[in-house]
């Protein structure tokens, strides 16, 4: 039992990096656009299912994000530029906008999920990729775990650098902080909001591709991805992008330890216990600011 712990922790880190990636997207969307996008998991589902479909056409899953990423970006961009922008313009107050956006996202979640279900049905799609085993330091790993970790980490760092260093990233952070003033400083805030939302969707779609390499996917997987992403986002601090990545890795480790040493059914209840403790002790999250 005990000798499995290091391996479980490492696999947990590998898995957690994907959680971190999808939570980063959600955190960006909430932090900048103020939309608690509970559709997020459906983008993960779309990414995963499309990867499976594309690999049926002979396209390597590692290349799939090149097609899926821009597609998700466009869907996210359009959603923000039409639906959420209109809701924001018509809402009497910011809290009313958040409530309405949440309900609208709830509707969009069902729209995407059932379009996918009509298109692909409810079956499980075995989409494993690189499923052979390598030994490393006396521990056995599945190759795709290492590949997904590398991609997720690289993307996570890239997004972090983009947000903190680039000109566009600065505009995004300014818009998140104070859209009014950012607008006065010459930032095209509507464009920035739509861009951020699209970027979040792109990250979700890519995370979906990574998930599909390791597990069989189906059109009904979106909801549980959203639940994990939401919990990770709160643990990391709402709106804190690096915090989400760290919390994702933490959740990955916890999920592997719970599933490996105790009981796989209890992973979500354990997340909930963590969430409850955090909300009671430190509602701003692990890396969140006041």
């Amino acid at each position, binding site marked *: 039992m005990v000798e499995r712990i290091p391996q479980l922790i490492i696999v947990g880190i590998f898995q957690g990096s994907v959680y971190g990636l999808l939570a980063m997207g959600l955190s960006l969307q909430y932090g900048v656009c103020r939309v608690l996008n509970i559709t997020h998991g459906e983008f993960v589902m779309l990414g995963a299912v499309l990867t499976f479909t594309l690999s049926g056409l002979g396209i390597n899953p590692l290349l799939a994000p090149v097609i899926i990423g821009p597609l998700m970006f466009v869907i996210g961009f359009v959603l923000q530029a039409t*639906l959420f922008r209109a809701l924001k313009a*018509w809402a009497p107050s910011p809290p009313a906008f958040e409530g*309405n956006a949440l309900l609208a996202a709830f*509707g*969009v979640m069902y729209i995407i999920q059932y379009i996918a279900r009509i298109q692909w049905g409810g079956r499980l799609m075995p989409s494993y990729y690189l499923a052979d085993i390598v030994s490393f330091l006396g521990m056995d790993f599945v190759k795709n775990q290492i590949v997904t970790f590398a991609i997720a980490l690289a993307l996570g760092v890239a997004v972090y650098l983009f947000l903190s260093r680039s000109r566009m990233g600065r505009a995004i952070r300014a818009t998140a902080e104070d859209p009014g003033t950012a607008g006065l400083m010459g930032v095209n805030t509507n464009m920035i909001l739509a861009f951020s939302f699209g970027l979040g969707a792109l990250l979700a779609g890519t995370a979906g591709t990574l998930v599909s390499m390791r597990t069989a996917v189906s059109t009904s997987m979106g909801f549980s991805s959203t639940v994990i992403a939401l919990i990770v986002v709160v643990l990391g601090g709402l709106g804190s992008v690096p915090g989400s990545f760290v919390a994702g890795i933490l959740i990955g480790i916890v999920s592997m330890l719970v599933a490996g040493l105790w*009981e796989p059914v209890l992973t979500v209840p354990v997340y909930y216990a963590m969430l409850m403790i955090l*909300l009671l002790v430190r*509602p701003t999250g692990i890396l969140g600011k006041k």
Partner: protein
Amino acid sequence: MDITRFISTHRKLLLVGFLVLILIFIITLPLYAGKSDVRVLTTVLMYVVLAVSWAMFSGTTGYMSLAPAAFFGLGIYTMALLQKELPFFLIIPIGGLVSFAFALLVGLVTLRLKGIYFAIFTFGLVVFMTEIIQFLETRLWQRHGWQIIPIDNEILLYTIFGLVVVTVLATYFIRRSRYGLALLSIGGNEEAAEHMGINTTRTKVLIFAISSAFMGAAGVITAPGLIYVNANIAFSLFYSFMPILMAVFGGMGQLYGPIVGAVIFGYLEKTLRAQLYSYFMLGFGIILVAVILFLPNGIAGLVPTLQDKLGGVIQKLRKGGQAGQHADT
């Protein structure tokens, strides 16, 4: 006699008459309608309870609870566990109390914070409940699901109708009370409400628990109609989605809004869902988005606008008629 004037002067009388008609319709339905019609009406009334009690909390305070199913399912499980020990009519309040206590716990953890934490917490609550119960069932009780002894359809119909009456009356009186005003002011501007001396956390937690109690009671009454339940059936996300859609569609500003929404969609659900499940859910998603975009106050919000427009037209006609009379004499 002028019909428009009659309506405006005898509004109370007409309302009472309308309610009496509905009462007679529901009570006498089993006499001439078939079994399936009775079950449709029972389901519709169940949705009325869910939608009204959802709007009781989320409609007034603006805090979006995404988990009516968690409390509803808790009621179903209370029934499954207690059906052999206690009589049916005693389980209903117990189911309500169980949901009340659980909602109190959830509320105390999340409702101190900003609304968004509450929405996040409730979103996954259904999954949490499902997995905990699956764990308990497989590990402790060594079983999958529960048989529930069926109860006569007519008894179920009358019981759920009684619950509808209680829920609607409770909502009506809460809305009229000081407490209802406190809730509305929290929905309007929570900080201002706090400064006026309202204990916002206590108010929110209490109303959340009360609304969940009705959902739990509705779960108890629905359980016998399901015959067999397991965690996935009792805590189906569907029961979270429908009440929200119904309340938003009907409009949460008025008491009758969620009722109208529940009657329309409850009927559609019962008649269409079986054949066209995916298209049905897709259509409902589209309706939800469209309503939030174009009818933020729902059907109930449409009524005053229509009244304004129609009223103007009617008045014009009436004036025209009078002018004509004068001209004749």
